[in-house]
Structures are given as C-alpha cells and as structure tokens.
C-alpha cells in the first residue's frame, strides 16, 4: 500500500514539474527561434566576439593559413583593401623581414608569406567559417558582403550567394549594401533587368534614408549604386534616366571628369534621338 502511495506521489510530482517546466521550455524555444539557432541563444551578445574571430579565421583560410596575429597587425602597416570596388578579403600587409633568429628559424615551420603562393586561395574552405560568423552575428554587413564575394566571384555559386544575401536582408532589411549586391546578381548573373532596377532603386532609397543626415555619408556605396543604375538604364536606351543616375554618381565620384564626358556623350545621344 505504501509503495503504491509513493508511486502516486511521484507521478503527481512529475506532473507538477512538467506543468512548471513546459511553459518555460516553450518560451525558450520561441526565443531561440527568433534569435537564430541554439548557438546564438547560448552565446548571446558574446557571440559577436566569436563572430569576429571566425571572420578572421575565414580570412586566414583564404590566405592558406598565412594570417597576421593581432600582435603583428599592430606592428605592421594597415592592410589595404582587396580587389578594387569589391569586398574581397583584405590583402595582407607587407610582411616585415624576420628580426630575430627565432623568427627566421620559425619561418620554416609556418605557411610562407602571400607572395609565394600567387592565386591559390582556399576560397571553398572559408565558407564554413563565414557561415558560423554570420550565424553568431547576423548584423555584420561586411561579413555578408565578403562571403557573397567569395561565393559569387571565386566559386561561381551565384544561387548560394543569393541565399546568403536574402538571409542578410531578412536580418538587416535597411541595408543598402546587401541590396546593391542582390541587384548585381540579378543584373549580371540572371540578366533580370527589371528586378535589378527595382532592387537598386530600393538600395538608393535606403541610402538616402540613412546616410543623407550623417556628417560623413558612405558616398562610395552611393557611387556604386548610382553608377550601376546608370549603366543599366543606358543598356536599355533610357538615356534620360541614365544621365540622372550618372550625375548622382559624378557628384560623389573621386574621378568626376570621366563621368562628365560620359554624361555629355549621353546627352548628345539623347538629343540625336529627340531629333
């Protein structure tokens, strides 16, 4: 009799515990769904630190293991950006000659400096690290752009690049940089002019929304968006629209003369068309 009572008591305790725990678990599951996966929920805000580490790791993989530490970065010139006008992983700063016998001897046991391995970058190997980095910090626009550059330009995986961009836009709906890259995929890879135009126009709108009020607006991005829109309209023989976009690009360009000449040529074309 006592055993049965004990069993009943245990059953009641289990039931009570379940009613107490279930709502908490449901709330936790909701939290993790909105914040990403388990890793994001588990690491919380500290995830950003890890995200930066994994982005650096991806960069190191791109350079086949030859990547300066924070100590070396502090002691060497600042790295300059990768391929011009792209979000390629940054070029490594010039490596100083080994200054001690330990460095000289140790250089035989570490990957050689970048000049020795030409173009054999490990693009494919960078992706797991970028994925991890983006999962941990889904608001880091630069990491999206670099991952998309690697996927699209180095691996030719345009569809996967689009998926990454769409994830990024879902997390950062106001990002004009991501919209710009999405437009590039529509324009250059899919040849879908109408969608590319819509996306770039939205990117220009988002840029104006966020950057106009700033003391130092991101004019480089505006130049990219306006220049692409100008090219798109020119290819469709919409010269009036093309001139408008090129004029915007010229106003923020570092070399306005070349654009000025192009605008004049388009104006002439437009006049000839009008006659």
């Amino acid at each position, binding site marked *: 009799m006592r055993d049965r009572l004990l069993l009943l008591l245990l059953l009641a305790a289990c039931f009570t515990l379940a009613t107490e725990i279930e709502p908490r678990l449901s709330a936790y599951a909701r939290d993790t769904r909105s914040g990403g996966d388990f890793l994001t929920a588990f690491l919380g805000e500290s995830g950003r630190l890890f995200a930066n580490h994994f982005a650096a790791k991806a960069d190191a*993989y791109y350079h*086949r*293991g*030859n990547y300066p*530490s924070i*100590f*070396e970065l*502090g*002691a060497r010139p600042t790295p300059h950006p990768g391929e011009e006008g792209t979000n390629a992983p940054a070029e490594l700063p010039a490596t100083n000659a080994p*200054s*001690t016998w*330990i*460095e000289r*001897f*140790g250089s*035989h*046991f*570490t*990957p*050689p400096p970048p000049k020795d391995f030409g173009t054999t970058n*490990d693009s*494919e*190997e960078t*992706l*797991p*690290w970028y*994925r991890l980095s983006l999962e941990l910090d889904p608001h880091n626009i630069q990491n999206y752009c670099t991952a998309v550059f690697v996927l699209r330009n180095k691996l030719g995986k345009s569809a996967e690049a689009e998926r990454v961009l769409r994830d990024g836009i879902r997390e950062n709906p106001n990002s004009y940089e991501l919209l710009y890259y999405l437009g590039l995929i529509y324009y250059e890879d899919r040849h879908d002019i109408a969608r590319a135009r819509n996306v770039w126009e939205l990117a220009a709108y988002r840029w104006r929304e966020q950057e106009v009020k700033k003391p130092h607006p991101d004019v480089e991005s505006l130049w990219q968006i306006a220049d692409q829109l100008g090219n798109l309209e020119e290819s469709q023989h919409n010269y009036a629209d093309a001139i408008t976009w090129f004029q915007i690009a010229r106003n923020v360009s570092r070399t306005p003369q070349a654009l000025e000449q192009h605008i004049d040529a388009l104006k002439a074309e437009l006049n000839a068309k009008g006659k």
Partner: protein
Amino acid sequence: MSKIFAVAGVVFMELYRRKDFYVLFILTALITVVLGAVGDQQAVGYLKEICLLLIWVSSLVIAITTAARQIPAERESRTIFPLLAKPVSRAQVLLGKFAGCWLASGVALLVFYIFFGLVAASREHELHLELYAQAVWLHWQALGIVTALTLLGSLVLSAPAPNITIVFIISVGCLYVSRYLHLVAARMTEPGQTITGVIYYTVPQLWFFDQRALVIHNWPAIAWIWVGLATVYGALYSGFFLFAACLIFRRKALN
C-alpha cells in the same frame, strides 16, 4: 640504460591501465565525427583544424597529468623507498619516469594522428604522409619538453594540481604567445622591455613544433634539415629541464 627502461616500462604500463587516454580519444573521435557529419561536406579544413586542436589539447593533458603525478604519487604511497633501495640512482629513476611518460604520450599521439589521417583521407582522398610524419614527430618533441618541464615542476611544487595548472598555462603561452613577445617588448618601456625580451629568448618556442597550419592547408612538407634542427632545439630544452630536475631530486628529502 636498462634500469632507465625498466622504470619507463612500468610508467608506460601504468598509463595504459588508466582511462585518461581512452576517454580523450573517444571524445576527440566523437566530436570530429559529429562535426564531420553535420558540417559542410565540401570543406575539409575546418574539420582538420578542430581535430588537430583536440589532438593538441588531449596530448598536452595526457603528457602533463601523467608526468605531474609520477614523483608525488611515489612519495605519497612510499613506493619510492623500495624503488630507490634497488641498485638504481635517483637520476635513473627520474630519467625512467621521463622516458615512460614521453613514450606513452608518443604512442597515444600516434593513435590520434592515425585517426586524423583517416578522417582527412576520407574527405580529401589523398594522404600527405610526409607532412603528417613531420607533424607527429615535431608534436612529440614538444611533448618531450612539456613532460620534462612537468617533472621539474613536480619536484619544485608541493602538489600535482598547481603543477598541472602552471605547466598547462606555460605550454599554451609558449604555443600561442611566445613568438610575439619581441613585438610586445618593442612597445614597452624599461625595465619591462628587457624583462619581456629575456623571456622571449629563454622560453621554449613550442610553436616551432606546431605544424597545424601546414597540415590544414596542405602545404608541402618542410625540409628535413629544419625538422632535425628543431629536434635538437627540443632535445636541448628537454635536457636542460631534466638536468635541473635531477639536481633538485638528488638533494630532495623524500620523507
């Protein structure tokens, strides 16, 4: 020499009766296999990186914990007295302990690297045997330095726990930070600059023995002459620590 190997044999057998190695190996294998199954199937670098990191951590744990317990355990159980009553010197006991720990770590390392080679080959469909052989060899030399340092620590420090902690911190520092100490020193003011500079030149540069970056990114094997020189470098440090340990052990009261 036979006396040293007799002591080493006992240490060797003792390690494989304990469960440390098996637990660490199963843990390493499990984590690697799970990550390999759920991760990116195209990329292999991240898998090699995690597997090698686990191998380094496991090997350091095996080498340090095994070496740290040797002398204190013998003293605590008082088995050191019948051992020294035999025709064997204290230096031979110490060298035997070192040889046993180092050999046992080496065998464990070999098992770990065979597993690593299988994982890498299953994904890459090629085996970089020469590079892997160099990686195992140099890794073993690093464990030799760490084992000798731990034995020295076990004679200086009162209990195994602080010794294990301190040697682990020193080893990780020598692996990841020691190579940059001269850059840190260059930005410091005196006397910090000189002190950091002296530390830079005196601590064993364990990163010479860490071939992970070359293995992960499939760089060609390094010239064997450099492997030989690194072996000499490792032997000098191991010899220095063992010599210091022998000197201390010779004068140490055991009761």
